[in-house]
């Protein structure tokens, strides 16, 4: 019978590399990016949105027509080589106006979302981290803000500040951050019990440091997903407001205003309605696909 030591033989010294890690080191962001790219629908959404953003930003500069240049001689034309989307009843170039409208709609969407994210993270983070009575009071304030319909805030702000891009943005922000604050709060509440948060506390980290460098960073997944889905929501709200006539006023145009202008001539010139609405649809679809893709990429165990 073999003795126990005869079952084994020593490895040559060259093989003694037990700490070797073969896999390439990937940061979290890189990992998410790779998973995101493997999702075709999400990638298509991202590319589509990228194209729209690029032409919306540079389009009005290179277009030969100003967005408010009227020429009643050529009103209500169909699509042609000179006017790709035709002209509206004032003879303005529809293509330029759609680009310009997309620019304003996207700006409202992204700026309002950025403001909501910042306010939501700070407010929700503080409420969740401190907890107890502070949390209780802060979340009841949130409930009160949330219980009044968004339209009422927006219309009130419009009355005071006039109907322009900024009052639409402020109106959307007044209660848009509430959702983000709730999500951040619930994430922070679960994360603050984790051992790495206790470890940071024992290391002498300040409350601010623990909250923003440890907890919020780890809540980034749900925050990004919520933010991505907030953008189409803001664009939709703006378009709706402009369509019912209390949003951005002429001659400036958002996609909603364009749709509203086209409403009167809908029976005769339906294409004037189709262009802005199609752009709204594409933008909102693209953003929703991106949001879904991000959710899957950030949370690979959750689905699939």
């Amino acid at each position, binding site marked *: 019978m073999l003795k126990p030591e005869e079952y084994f033989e020593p490895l040559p010294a060259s093989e003694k590399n037990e700490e070797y890690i073969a896999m390439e080191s990937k940061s979290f962001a890189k990992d998410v990016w790779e998973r995101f790219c493997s999702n075709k629908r999400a990638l298509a959404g991202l590319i589509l949105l990228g194209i729209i953003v690029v032409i919306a930003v540079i389009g009005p500069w290179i277009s030969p027509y100003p967005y408010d240049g009227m020429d009643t001689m050529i009103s209500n034309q169909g699509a042609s080589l000179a006017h790709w989307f035709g002209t509206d009843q004032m003879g303005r170039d529809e293509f330029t106006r759609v680009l310009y409208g997309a620019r304003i709609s996207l700006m409202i969407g992204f700026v309002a979302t950025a403001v909501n994210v910042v306010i939501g993270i700070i407010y929700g983070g503080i409420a969740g981290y401190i907890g107890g009575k502070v949390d209780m009071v802060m979340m009841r304030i949130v409930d009160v803000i949330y219980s009044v319909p968004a339209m009422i805030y927006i219309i009130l702000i419009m009355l005071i500040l006039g109907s322009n891009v900024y009052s639409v943005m402020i109106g959307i922000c007044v209660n848009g951050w509430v959702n983000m604050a709730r999500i951040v709060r619930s994430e922070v509440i679960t994360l603050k019990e984790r051992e*790495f948060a206790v470890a940071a506390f024992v290391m*002498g980290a300040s409350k601010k440091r623990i909250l923003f460098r440890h907890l919020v960073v780890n809540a980034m997944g749900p925050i990004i997903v919520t933010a991505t889905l907030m953008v189409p929501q803001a664009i939709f709200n703006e378009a709706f407001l402009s369509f019912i006539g209390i949003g951005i006023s002429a001659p400036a145009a958002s996609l909603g205003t364009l749709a509203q202008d086209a409403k009167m001539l809908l029976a005769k010139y339906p294409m004037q309605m189709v262009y802005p609405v199609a752009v709204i649809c594409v933008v909102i679809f693209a953003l929703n696909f991106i949001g879904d893709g991000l959710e899957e990429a950030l949370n690979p165990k959750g689905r699939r």
Partner: protein
Amino acid sequence: MSEPVIRVEHLKKFFPVKGKLFEKKQYVKAVNDISFSIRRGETLGIVGESGCGKSSLGRTVLKVHQPDSGHIYFNGTDITKLNEKQMHPYRQKMQMIFQDPYASLNPRFTVGETIAEPMEIYQMYDPKERMERVQQLMETVGLKPDHIRRYPHEFSGGQRQRIGIARTLALNPEFIVCDEPFSALDVSIQAQIINLLEKIQDERKISYIVVAHDLNAVRHISHNIGVMYLGHLVEIGPAAEVYQNPKHPYTKALISSIPVADPDYTGLGKRIILEGEVPSPIHVPKGCPFSTRCKYCTEKCKGQMPELKTVGEEQVACTLYE
């Protein structure tokens, strides 16, 4: 004799239990009237079964939980009543190693960021020196310095525990609470970590509290051992004495339960089997907490919790030794 690094007197920590409205508020008595001291470069092992308050004791000593009463002295200074701002300089000297090396590292930080963070908080060294020190620390704990940019999920459990230890050492602490540092690791890795902790102790004269339920590992690493039962310290003394000559009936049962790695071992019959269940820590029996399960229990035991009495080299809280 020099002043002990940590001295704890009559420490108590009760956690409120969420009760129904209008009911009398109830408490889990996690740490109940515990006193001990640890000298420089020594290790106190805390053993006891799950839920007896071992971890809570470790965390209360570090003031992660604010104690309800009693005193904690660090190098002779009473730190019990200090607020977080006043605690800041002391936190640097009192650190903690966690049970779960998966949960105690921030998954979004690289190894380098994790180990450098405590130095950043205390603004030790300039950024360049910090990175050099991170690499030194990684070598000290047996990690390759070129892994500095990797993330915790790319390491094995033992390696992560080493990262945690390196982070703890970054502040040059004098006292470390090790909260079950071995229980999430497999046996061969446990041995490596135990040896690492001992090596660090020899080099830096750090004092440890090692909380664990692996009795053999604790015996190996500890100078003194404290036995806890339902929030009370029932016996404390030199490791060899507690293991070879346990005094308290609970310690006897606990020590007899250690498995022996010898197929010819015939002492199985000597194993003391305790009857009944551990009482709920909310309703701790009056008097000696062990009285409901102790075969030596007398009327006296049910009256009042016995004080810790010196018996030989040890201290025991049991009426048998009064």
